[in-house]
């Protein structure tokens, strides 16, 4: 890329293309579509955390005059164990089926058992009570530590730990063991002047999107069935749903509605196959919308973890060895983000010796889904906290400690590649030079800093740009817009086409109108789909240059393209995009640019956060009084939405650090499945979230873009808890640092 490129549109704080619809209530989200003849589906959920299903009798429900169809696992197509793409990471098809509707065992409280479709939502709900299910209740196992013990209740008697030298003879709850190493940690620890090791706990948390899962579907026995749903990736919904229905991929059209938040939680399916079965059996379109209670009990969540970290350093702050054991809860089925946790935990550090072992463990909780930088916040929380303690013990400023050991271009990562140019050092320096870091603290206040890393991904994206006779362009993309990405796409298209923003229209197309595009996740969209937009725009410009060249009888190389106008460099003629497109039929037909790519080279994004908190030692209430998020964006296409990602990630992390947790009773029933008791941050909990955008360009993107969506949730856990620890004089290793935990920590320390 050309470092010196001067941008005309990129970098503007433009109004988003979908803005009018979103502020007037016109935008249609998952639950907003109704169809003629539509009926409502509801799901019967398990009242037990762990039980055999002895029998399901749906006859009384089917006899209800308002009920039009009933579904159970037996209505799904037979599928065997097979790994399929599911947005961020992979999932097992058979597990996916058994999560949508339980087969012979319920594995968590709220696990779907059967479904009913009826004339009204109310009747469907009432009819659920008419389904008779006989259970044989089993003891649940609710914590990763308990689940790993010999003699623990086993969820799946056909699951044998993978990743061991020899496959064990007995089934267990440990799905996978993994390890990563570089150098020699024993030697590294021998060289250390100070070694600190700690145990950490992070609870089950939820992505907490405000829009519940919802879909409206219509099964068509002859032609093409339709799913309208809120999802981060409708192409992957098509792939997995068609498999569970046993229909061909092309017999299912999936339309992505506007999406009311996802944060990784809408990269999988729950309702879609069930709704299609109900539609197939009733001959009616079916709408299904989860209650908030169902969202908490049966979708998401993010893994609870128990992690152990040991780090050694010399007196001058040089880190000599880093070691971790990471245990992740997967929920009911294997597939926690343990691996990205292992891979990310020590990446901010250029350390010679490192060793990580990880365990993916099933427990009687809902199957976890991706949650913003999946796996990284839990792991890096542990590492960053220990680094802060080492710095404090050694009398070194925590930012200086990080600068001394910072990962940079050429650093050998634990997970494989050497880093290309990255912006961690620049973020640390910006943090150190910030007014915030230089400011003084008051009584009962503490300050914490932490760094964070996330890989970011690329992958396939398809974009078509259709040129119109009035010289405007429609960008057709396949990435659901979850946080304002249309605004970034419009800016990149405008830049490359040389057309002003009001001449760019944006469409997120359905699975028929465009070739496959990977799910919005992994902070990939502005990077990868943005690259496809640029390529499609370049293709359209090239075609317009060729058309102008044919009119002028010159070659395309003799035509310049400046601000949406073709210029004949051999004369003084000009043709605007509108003129070229109006005359397109005379020069070879209408013009569409195409950018179907598989994007490689997603640049990692590092962040550094500074948190100041004030703790009321009587009530244990923590107030975040000042917060700064610093992160490398590569190139900020739309700075406001980049800042918004930093701020949103920071605040989700603040919630994780201070308040959020699933609270289970002894029977494995979640006791706080609502926003009143599962308390996500409110406007009144927070200060302004200051941001500093660092721009170290990603050489693999034409404009230098790095994904920015996920890294921001990684640093807050350690930054906030370190600040709390400093304020109360007691270090905190268990999340959340809620008032009861803080009061107990203060009391225990005093005793």
């Amino acid at each position, binding site marked *: 890329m050309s470092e010196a490129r001067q941008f005309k549109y990129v970098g503007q704080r433009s109004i988003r293309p979908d803005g009018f619809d979103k*502020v007037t209530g016109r935008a249609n989200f998952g639950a907003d579509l109704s169809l003629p003849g539509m009926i409502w589906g509801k799901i019967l959920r398990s009242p037990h955390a762990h039980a055999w299903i002895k029998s399901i009798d749906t006859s009384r429900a089917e006899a209800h005059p308002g009920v039009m169809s009933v579904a159970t696992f037996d209505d799904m197509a037979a599928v065997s164990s097979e790994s399929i793409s599911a947005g961020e990471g992979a999932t097992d098809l058979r597990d996916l089926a058994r999560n949508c509707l339980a087969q012979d065992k319920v594995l968590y409280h709220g696990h779907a058992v059967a479904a009913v479709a009826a004339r009204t939502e109310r009747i469907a709900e009432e009819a659920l009570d008419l389904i008779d299910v006989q259970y044989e209740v089993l003891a649940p196992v609710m914590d990763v530590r308990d689940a790993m013990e010999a003699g623990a209740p086993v969820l799946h008697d056909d699951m044998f730990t993978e990743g061991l030298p020899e496959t064990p003879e007995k089934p267990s709850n440990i799905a996978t063991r993994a390890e990563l190493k570089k150098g020699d940690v024993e030697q590294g620890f021998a060289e250390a002047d100070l070694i600190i090791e700690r145990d950490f706990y992070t609870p089950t948390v939820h992505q907490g999107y405000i829009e519940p899962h919802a879909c409206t579907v219509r099964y068509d026995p002859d032609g093409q069935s339709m799913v309208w749903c809120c999802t981060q990736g409708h192409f992957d919904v098509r792939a997995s749903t068609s498999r569970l229905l046993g229909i061909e991929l092309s017999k299912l059209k999936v339309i992505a509605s506007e999406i009311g938040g996802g944060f990784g939680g809408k990269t999988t399916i729950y309702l879609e196959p069930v709704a299609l079965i109900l539609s197939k059996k009733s001959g009616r379109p079916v709408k299904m919308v989860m209650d908030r209670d169902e969202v908490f009990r049966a979708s998401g969540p993010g893994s609870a973890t128990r992690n152990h970290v040991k780090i050694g350093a010399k007196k001058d702050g040089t880190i000599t060895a880093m070691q971790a054991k990471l245990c992740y809860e997967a929920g009911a089925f294997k597939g926690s983000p343990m691996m990205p946790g292992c891979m990310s935990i020590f990446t901010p550090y250029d350390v010679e010796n490192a060793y990580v072992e990880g365990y993916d463990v099933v427990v009687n909780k809902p199957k976890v889904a991706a949650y913003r930088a999946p796996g990284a916040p839990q792991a890096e929380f542990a590492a960053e906290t220990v680094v802060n303690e080492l710095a404090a013990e050694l009398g070194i400023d925590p930012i200086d400690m990080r600068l001394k050991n910072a990962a940079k271009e050429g650093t050998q990562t634990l997970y494989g590649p050497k880093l290309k140019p990255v912006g961690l050092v620049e973020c640390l320096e910006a943090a150190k030079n910030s007014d915030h870091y230089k400011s003084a603290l008051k009584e009962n206040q503490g300050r914490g800093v932490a760094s964070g890393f996330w890989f970011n991904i690329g992958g396939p994206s398809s974009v078509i740009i259709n040129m119109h006779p009035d010289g405007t362009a429609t960008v057709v993309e396949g990435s659901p817009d979850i946080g304002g990405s249309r605004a970034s796409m419009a800016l990149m298209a405008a830049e490359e086409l040389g057309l002003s923003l009001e001449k760019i229209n944006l469409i997120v197309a359905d699975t028929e109108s465009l070739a496959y595009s990977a799910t919005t996740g992994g902070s990939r969209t502005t990077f990868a789909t943005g690259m496809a937009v640029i390529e499609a725009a370049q293709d359209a410009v090239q075609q317009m240059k060729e058309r102008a060249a044919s009119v002028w009888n010159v070659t395309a190389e003799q035509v310049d393209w400046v601000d949406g106008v073709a210029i004949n460099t051999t004369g003084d003629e000009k043709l605007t995009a509108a003129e070229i497109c109006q005359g397109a039929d005379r020069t070879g037909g209408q013009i569409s640019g195409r950018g179907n790519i598989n994007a490689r080279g997603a640049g990692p994004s590092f962040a550094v956060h500074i948190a100041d908190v004030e703790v009321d030692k009587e009530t244990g209430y923590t107030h975040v009084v000042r917060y700064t998020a610093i992160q490398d964006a590569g190139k900020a296409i739309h700075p406001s939405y980049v800042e918004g990602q930093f*701020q949103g990630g920071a*605040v*989700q992390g603040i919630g994780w650090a201070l308040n959020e947790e699933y609270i289970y009773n002894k029977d494995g029933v979640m006791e706080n499945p609502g*926003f009143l008791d599962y308390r996500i941050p409110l406007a009144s909990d927070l200060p302004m979230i200051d941001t500093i955008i660092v721009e170290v360009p990603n050489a693999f993107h034409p404009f230098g873009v790095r994904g920015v969506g996920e890294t921001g949730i990684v640093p807050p856990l350690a930054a906030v808890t370190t600040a709390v620890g400093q304020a109360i004089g007691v270090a905190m290793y268990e999340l959340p640092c809620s008032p009861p935990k803080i009061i107990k920590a203060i009391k225990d320390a005093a005793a």
Partner: protein
Amino acid sequence: MPKAHVTTIVNGYEVEFLCEPHETLLDVLRNSLNLTGTKEGCSTGDCGACSVTLDGRLVCSCLVLAPEVEGRDIGTIEGIADKEHLHVIQQKFLEHAALQCGICTPGLIVSTKALLEENPDPTEEQARYYLAGNLCRCTGYDKIIRAVLDAAETMRAETLKEGA
């Protein structure tokens, strides 16, 4: 149980609907009147996505029973803009990028309008507490609060101009 017949005012126009006694105002707005701009996030009054005004008072429409709105005056997100002209609050939300996914936005705009009618010059803290019933999971509220305070300032200036 027979359906109730309800006559009410929505966004300045008289409407009639039939509803079952258990149905909420939110159900009726979304499912009977096709006013889907009002969103359902929790149905327990905790998230504010369904915020509307009832006789000028800010309420969660999921906590109001539909038969209760007989003869009342309801304001929803669909009534905030003056046809194609956005309200200052809507314009400021866009200028400040105060929305990411946009699901909480209708409720926040309705609540902000109620706030500024009650208190045209709120402090940051007053705005944060007034809007504490409207959950947003995307933005961290920073840009929302900036949009609200900017809208307040613009609206005060417009009022002064009109008065002069």
